[in-house]
């Protein structure tokens, strides 16, 4: 199998060509190692970081920005949004605090991306 794609691992946006099958892939067009990793991952198990917000009580504003600590499978983005829509946290929160463990059984936690003091 052969596919052309744009690497989204950084704003350079290198144009990759990924060729191969099973466990055996070659990536060309990348400017760094992350591009190779991305190209292979995109063919075998595409994943994305999910940045979103959850409800926060007792802070200056009503939404706390969060993200998955690592990429989660692309197919689980909407399920993760569903799970996160039920989460309510209380201020204070520090950047990096876990707001939801093991989102959608991915083994990956969702963490706060902003420090919000209680008011």
């Amino acid at each position, binding site marked *: 199998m052969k596919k052309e*794609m*744009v*690497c*989204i*691992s*950084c*704003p350079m*946006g290198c*144009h990759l060509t990924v060729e191969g099958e099973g466990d055996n892939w070659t990536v060309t067009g990348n400017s760094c190692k992350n591009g190779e990793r991305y190209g292979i991952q995109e063919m075998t198990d595409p994943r*994305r*970081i*999910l*940045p*979103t*917000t959850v*409800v926060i009580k007792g802070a*200056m*504003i*009503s*939404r706390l*920005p969060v*993200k998955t600590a690592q990429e989660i499978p*692309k197919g689980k*983005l*909407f399920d993760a*949004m569903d799970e996160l829509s039920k989460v309510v946290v209380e201020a204070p929160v520090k*950047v990096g605090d876990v707001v939801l463990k093991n989102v959608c059984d991915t083994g990956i936690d969702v963490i706060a*991306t*902003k*420090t919000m003091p209680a008011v």
Partner: protein
Amino acid sequence: MYDIIVIGGGPAGLAAAVEAKKEGVDNILILERDRELGGILNQCIHNGFGLHTFKEQLTGPEYAGRYIDMAMDLKIPYKLNTMVLDMERKDDDTKVVHAINEEDGYMALEAKAVILTMGCRERTAGAIGIPGFRPAGVFTAGTAQRFINMEGYMTGKEVVILGSGDIGLIMARRMTLEGAHVKCVCEIMPYSNGLTRNIVQCLDDFNIPLKLSHTITFIHGKDRVEAVDVTQVDENLKPIPGTTETIPCDTLLLSVGLIPENEISRGAGVEIDRRTQGPSISELCETNLPGVFAAGNVVHVHDLVDFVSQEAALAGKGAARYVKGHLEEDINFTTVNGDGIGNVVPEKITVANLDDSVNCYMRVRKVSTDTVINCYIGDEKIATKKARKFVPAEMVNFKIKKSDLEKYHDGELKFVVEPKEA
């Protein structure tokens, strides 16, 4: 009297203040009109910031947080909810900043140097003149972003986006994830103005169509948006009759460009470059007014915040040198945009102020491959910038060595897009 007053506490203002403090200037004050520091990054909850600076993919609030922490660690004073109204320069070169907040009321604050870091604002529907009423449901993409990400308020369910700049693309994904149906993104140009990675991860991932060479020719609905007319345009960007499609929607997001916010600069007599719509600046970000510096989106619209921080650090350094009386003011070079280049920043260069090189930031006018950007002084080519592809959406950072400039003493640096030599 303050040594330095920084107007605007976004990433540019923070980086400038941090650098000035590190250069040994203590008496600094940051003035910010919002309820917190961090600027526009507070609403940019997506990841993709800071790869150059921190070698990781941070979200906007995380990136801002790092600079806020640096400023706090250095104990740099700041005032929030404080709106700067205007600024003037007195005959003895003192700068007076007029500002207002609830606690202190009206203030006239004096400083030796001022750094302008007010960022930019978005173009609106009025600014681009789409026919039709101005019903509820028409938002700039940034306003919608603030509503959704900070107030938790969804702006609509059936969405059309005009303009494929990064904010529009990011909002297409954001609204889709929040359960809205984004019907399409229309772009009047034959190419997108956003980063390619955003087209992939914001549109392609969710099968949202990008209609290039299409614009919105009419907004239907009087109280609330009911539909928009989407029409194809020809190579002169004129609508092609008979190609109009009416798309029902309750929300129209506009992502049609940013304009540097320069009312204060203009009022103070800062010279504005008509190409960038921001102040003309030197290699250390000094404007035409001695002791008045500018950096970040107020100077020219950046697509990467890392470059904002880099540029702003120079402004901090420049202001610190000015305060200490170490800033050289003899301009050796001016920069000009030749064929294929839209604008160049900085506009003027004093070689004596450079460490070992100067970063010239520029935008190309159109997409090209198999080209290079050459830098000339007179007829002599002094440097070449290579890339696989040049696109208007991605600012080019062209580094010119101090040693190359020293060979000439003075002149005009001209940047030109030319075919790659075989």
